[in-house]
């Protein structure tokens, strides 16, 4: 099956459709050949998109990610420099309000109830509001880090693969060196140097996070370089820049996209892991991992001898559902763009 597809749609291959014009006058009914009005690149993306939206689990993933993002954005009003940008509030309470100060009926560690669907977090705050609000940190850090690292990796891998030779040799030795450290270990050290906080976390995961993309893009560029259309473009006098931007980068995009969509989940887990280790955001912040850290001490026994399972279950469930949906999307992108042979989709796992 793969073989036939490669022959009919293989990029950059010279296509020969078998008919002899001398003997066959009516060629249309003999083959299912139809005129391709789009350029190869566009039709590949469109075909990929069609395949993606037919994939039920991938579409479910998109729906969940969109819903979670909207819930995070509309959880509390957003004000930028005194101007109300987003006035809605889905979350019933402010994530930092300590409720028992205002309402004596609420205690520190209430189980889930009608008023507080996920219970009280152990410091007297409404857990439901905190879980909704917490999406802002994890989700935005995940998307920011992946866009940064994927862009840097694209440029780095593109340069390394395109120029080759000793440039490639040096650039790839650097990548190999970084590859010897697990991302989480590097992020831990960087956060230890810079301290916790939003942009510190972004930097911690971006500073070395581009290296996986660089590897994949380089490998892809090496393959693309061999194609006749690159040679043709060069023979026609195209400059390096135009070859890179018009031919190489568009063709190196599919494996990059697959890796990026599978990496968002990894980054989100990493951010939460730092939060859980007490090295992420400030300890009161409604970030999912930090929330799990806050309740760790009292998981075994809360006040009045009960086990406060809700404070552990819900924030972790939020991370899990988000990462799972992201991975469903990643698998969908992988299948749709048929990038499996690059290996970009392998080995993406929890921290």
């Amino acid at each position, binding site marked *: 099956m793969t073989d036939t597809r490669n022959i009919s749609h293989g990029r950059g291959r010279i296509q020969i459709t078998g008919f002899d014009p001398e003997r066959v006058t009516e060629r249309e009914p003999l083959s299912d050949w139809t005129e391709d009005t789009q350029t190869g690149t566009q039709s590949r993306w469109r075909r990929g998109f069609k395949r993606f939206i037919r994939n039920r689990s991938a579409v479910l993933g998109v729906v969940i990610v969109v819903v979670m993002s909207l819930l995070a954005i509309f959880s509390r009003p957003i004000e930028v420099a005194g101007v109300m940008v987003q006035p809605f509030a889905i979350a019933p309470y402010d994530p930092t309000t300590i409720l028992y100060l205002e309402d004596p009926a609420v205690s520190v560690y209430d189980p889930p109830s009608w008023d507080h669907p996920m219970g009280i977090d152990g410091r007297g705050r409404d857990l439901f509001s905190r879980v909704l609000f917490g999406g802002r940190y994890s989700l935005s850090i995940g998307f920011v880090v992946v866009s940064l690292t994927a862009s840097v990796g694209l440029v780095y891998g593109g340069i390394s693969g395109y120029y080759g030779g000793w440039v490639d040799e040096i650039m790839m*030795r*650097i990548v*190999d*060196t*970084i*590859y*010897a*450290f*697990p*991302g*989480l*270990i*590097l992020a*831990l*050290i*960087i956060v*230890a*140097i810079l301290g916790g906080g939003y942009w510190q976390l972004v930097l911690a995961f971006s500073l070395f996070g581009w290296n996986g993309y660089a590897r994949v893009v380089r490998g892809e560029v090496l393959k693309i370089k061999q194609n006749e259309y690159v040679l043709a473009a060069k023979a026609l006098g195209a400059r390096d820049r135009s070859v890179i931007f018009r031919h190489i980068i568009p063709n190196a995009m599919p494996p990059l996209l697959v890796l990026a969509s599978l990496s968002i*989940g990894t980054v989100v*887990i990493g951010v*939460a*892991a730092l939060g*859980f*280790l*007490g*090295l992420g955001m400030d300890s009161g912040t409604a970030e999912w*991992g930090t929330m*799990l850290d806050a309740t*760790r001490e009292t*998981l*075994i026994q809360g006040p009045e001898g009960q*086990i406060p*399972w809700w404070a*552990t*279950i819900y924030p*972790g469930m939020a*991370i*899990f559902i988000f*990462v*799972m949906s*992201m*991975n*469903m999307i990643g*698998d969908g992108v992988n299948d749709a763009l048929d990038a*499996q042979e690059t290996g970009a989709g*392998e*080995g*993406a*796992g*929890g*921290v």
Partner: protein
Amino acid sequence: MSLRRFILKRILAIIPILFGVSVITFALVHLTPGDPIDQVVGLNPDITASEEAQLRARYGLDGPVWQQYLTWIENVLRGDFGTVISNGRSVSAVVLARLPETIALGLFGWAFALIIAIPTGIYAAVNKDQFGDTVSRFIALSGISIPNFWLGLILILVMALWLDLWPVLAPNRLPLYHPDMLWFLILPGVTIGTAAAASIMRVMRTSMAEEMNKEYVTAARAKGLPERQVVLKHVLRNSLISVVTLAATLTAGIVSGSVVVEVVFNWPGLGREFIDAINGREINMIMAITLFTGVFIILANLVADILYAVLDPRIRYD
């Protein structure tokens, strides 16, 4: 290229990487504003400036950075990672004491991953697109998506608190080789092995399904081999190669997973020591564990490469 030449080439190639790893380790840690001496001074306001300089000289923290690097790497090559500044113990002694705990955890995780993933992967590939395959794919996807620290907390909550199968805290720690310790290894080991198990399952399923379509499988069937033998002897052997290519990545995952899991389960291994070192700004300890991790992963990669070349001779001719 003979296998011996291939191995020799790979070993030579890791020398610059080892150097790079030591530079990154050193550079990262020395970018930290404030060294342990600042902390000591902060705690004892009586220390004079000259005493502070003496302290710095004693721990080799006074020269220019490159000189400090040379001193450090020279000592490291002799096996001396310096001392833990807060209590004066030798870093290498602490690392050696903690290492078996982490290795036990990692090995258990690996064993768990292989025992779970290989049969499930085979099952899923043989029954591709059937109900059992769908279920096992869903489980594998959950396995790579679940944050390991949360999985650990859930296991404690369910197994230790609700089902009461384990004491929440190990009563008094027995030595690692005591058979009773195996029981306490289960929960952290399962936590650390889950992500690897899920990744192997996914790769096994894909590569086996791919292998099943190849011509040698048809040939084996045509000559009348029972299906069981075709799958377990021919297909399995070839698809295990793709698990080997994944092994180094998974080992890296288990190493970084141990940091988190050891904290969750209060397991006295290197990972927890690392977090303590970061919180206490013990630069010697941070450098030692970081360097150790880097070298270990390079070696894991080397072993995986060699194994791959042994299993699949085509790779040697690139």
